[in-house]
């Protein structure tokens, strides 16, 4: 999740590292102690996930625990061909569509909120705290409430209505907070310059604000997408009769006892990483094109 903030931090970290090397020929013992703590932390964080990925590549004899039995792509094929494992393809489809929808809405609303919150307006503090409130509210309870509300109103809950709303209550505050960080580096003198040169408000937004903010907007989009794609608690009671992918995986853990469950985990992780990689790549390309490092003349 922290990857989305990488845009500005990368050069900073890089310079810090190089200065440490230049300065210190002997590192203090605390460096090694903290390095051990960090290594353990990383192992605890990624170890279990890596176990799952490894176990998904077993052959037909494979079970749910180590030791590893053979190597093949059997369970990946099984995943997409066997009906008994569940509606993987359908739920994957829904999850991607829902995440795309959430991303677009988060992006648009966050941009508008970011632009609006540059100035004080009546009730701005209240709006801000309400937003943070929906971030800290327990997701399961919130989802339950939304589900109840939909039933009470008489609309049957489904992934593109109630689940969409429940997920937005989670992604919007995140998107807006990221947008605040992005906006802090936006100089409104660019807007003024555009106006001075005769641009209308819409032209200013289209030709100046959005392109200048593009790397930050990619980060917001990434947030929206990954948060939605992974969302479980709020979606559980709001998705109606058809499952999203996380819900499908969860229900599979209850009735599927083969490594195809692990294969599904591997596939979704790959999808996540491809999307994250694409976004970071986009940010790097944009920044490189803008020549963040001056070449002089």
């Amino acid at each position, binding site marked *: 999740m922290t990857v989305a903030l990488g845009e500005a931090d990368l050069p900073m970290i890089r310079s810090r590292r190089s200065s440490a090397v230049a300065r210190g020929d002997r590192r203090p013992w605390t460096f090694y102690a903290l390095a051990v703590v960090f290594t353990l932390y990383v192992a605890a964080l990624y170890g279990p996930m890596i176990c799952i990925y490894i176990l998904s590549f077993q052959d037909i004899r494979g079970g749910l625990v180590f030791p590893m039995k053979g190597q093949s792509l059997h369970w990946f094929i099984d995943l997409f061909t066997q009906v008994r494992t569940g509606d993987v393809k359908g739920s994957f489809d829904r999850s991607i569509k829902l995440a795309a929808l959430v991303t677009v809405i988060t992006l648009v609303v966050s941009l508008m909120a970011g632009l609006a919150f540059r100035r004080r307006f009546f009730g701005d503090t209240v709006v801000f705290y309400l937003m943070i409130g929906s971030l800290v509210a327990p997701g399961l309870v919130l989802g339950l409430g939304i589900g109840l509300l939909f039933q009470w109103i008489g609309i049957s809950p489904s992934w593109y209505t109630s689940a969409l709303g429940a997920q937005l209550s989670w992604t919007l505050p995140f998107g807006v907070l990221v947008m605040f960080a992005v906006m802090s580096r936006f100089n409104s003198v660019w807007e003024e310059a555009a106006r001075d040169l005769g641009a209308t408000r819409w032209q200013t937004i289209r030709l100046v604000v959005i*392109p200048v903010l593009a790397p930050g907007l990619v980060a917001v989009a990434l947030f929206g997408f990954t948060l939605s794609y992974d969302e479980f608690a709020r979606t559980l009671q709001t998705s109606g009769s058809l499952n999203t992918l996380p819900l499908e995986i969860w229900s599979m853990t209850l009735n599927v006892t083969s490594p195809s469950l692990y294969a599904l985990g591997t596939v979704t992780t790959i999808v996540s990483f491809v999307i994250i990689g694409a976004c970071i790549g986009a940010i790097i390309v944009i920044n490189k094109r803008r*020549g963040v490092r001056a070449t002089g003349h």
Partner: protein
Amino acid sequence: MRAGAGDIELAGLCKSYDGVTNVVDGVNLRIPDGAYCCFLGPSGCGKTTILRMIAGHEEPTAGEIVIGGGNVAGLAPVERRTAMMFQSYALFPHLTVRDNIAFALRVRGQSKAERYKAADVMMEKVRLTELADRLPANLSGGQQQRVALARAAITEPRVLLLDEPLSALDEQLRVQMRQELRRMQRELGITFIHVTHTQLEAIALADIVVVMEKGKIKQSGPARDVYAYPCDRYVAEFLGGQNVLSGKVEKVGDRFVVLSQPNRSGIQVRLGTEARVVVGDRIDLAVRRDDIELVRADAGSPDDGATALPSRVTAIEYQGSFVKVMLDTVPDEDFVAYVPERIFFRDPFNVGDVLLATWSAGRARVLA
């Protein structure tokens, strides 16, 4: 463009943000078409606010702005035919030099070929052709300024407004770009209004210097008038180059006054003309620093019409073409003589020397 299209008239211009204090307080000014006008003053004196009001980025609280004979209240910058060059240039970071310059034409809906043709002509003018495809981050400060200038000029404004255009540059480049600004102004033949807090910049560039303090115009006029004949103590001190002697008039005689200060009395200053002051007045007298001649105390009295004040040298600074000698002529106030280098080194003084600071009668002026 009809003649006189770029003349500006400010009448009773006021701006207040809180309804209580006026940042700009009743400014009246006429700037003729094609003039280079500098607003000079410390930060917070309202000079940038005036600029932004002329540009149409802020609306006056009261008063009128007339450009080329028409009141521009409520008009957008493009309708006013003004263009602004922002302090840090505000170049669009995502656009190349060519696209930055062509921006104004793009928002007017010109085709790519059309606007690039115009941008290329403009780039030729400011010698940016070989940098056309660079992004602003890859330009030096001076190059960025030229892009900003070209971007503003392509709208064919009748008034170009420059907000501290040289402050982002280092000293050497500043002098160089100063000349470039003046050259561009002459080439474009339009009115330039330039805001600065550097007096050197203002007097080097401007046809008209407007000295401001706390939202009001203190003095405006040709650079030489403002520098050589400041109207009051504030202007004299802000522009520098003058010593200001203040005190209470003790005695008024035939072409001389005697001033007294809390720590010193009997300062007799000769005046070239009959002074219109009366005993008891508090007055300020200005003498140019380069009009002061330093004479050793034992070298005999200077000629009759001159003022001679005994002083001690407190510091000496070598400035290249002249030497800055600081004196304790008046207590608690700076008193400085600019002595031409050659003259100084014929018989150099040392810190602590006692001498006479003299100037001939016509050199002292009574300030308002």
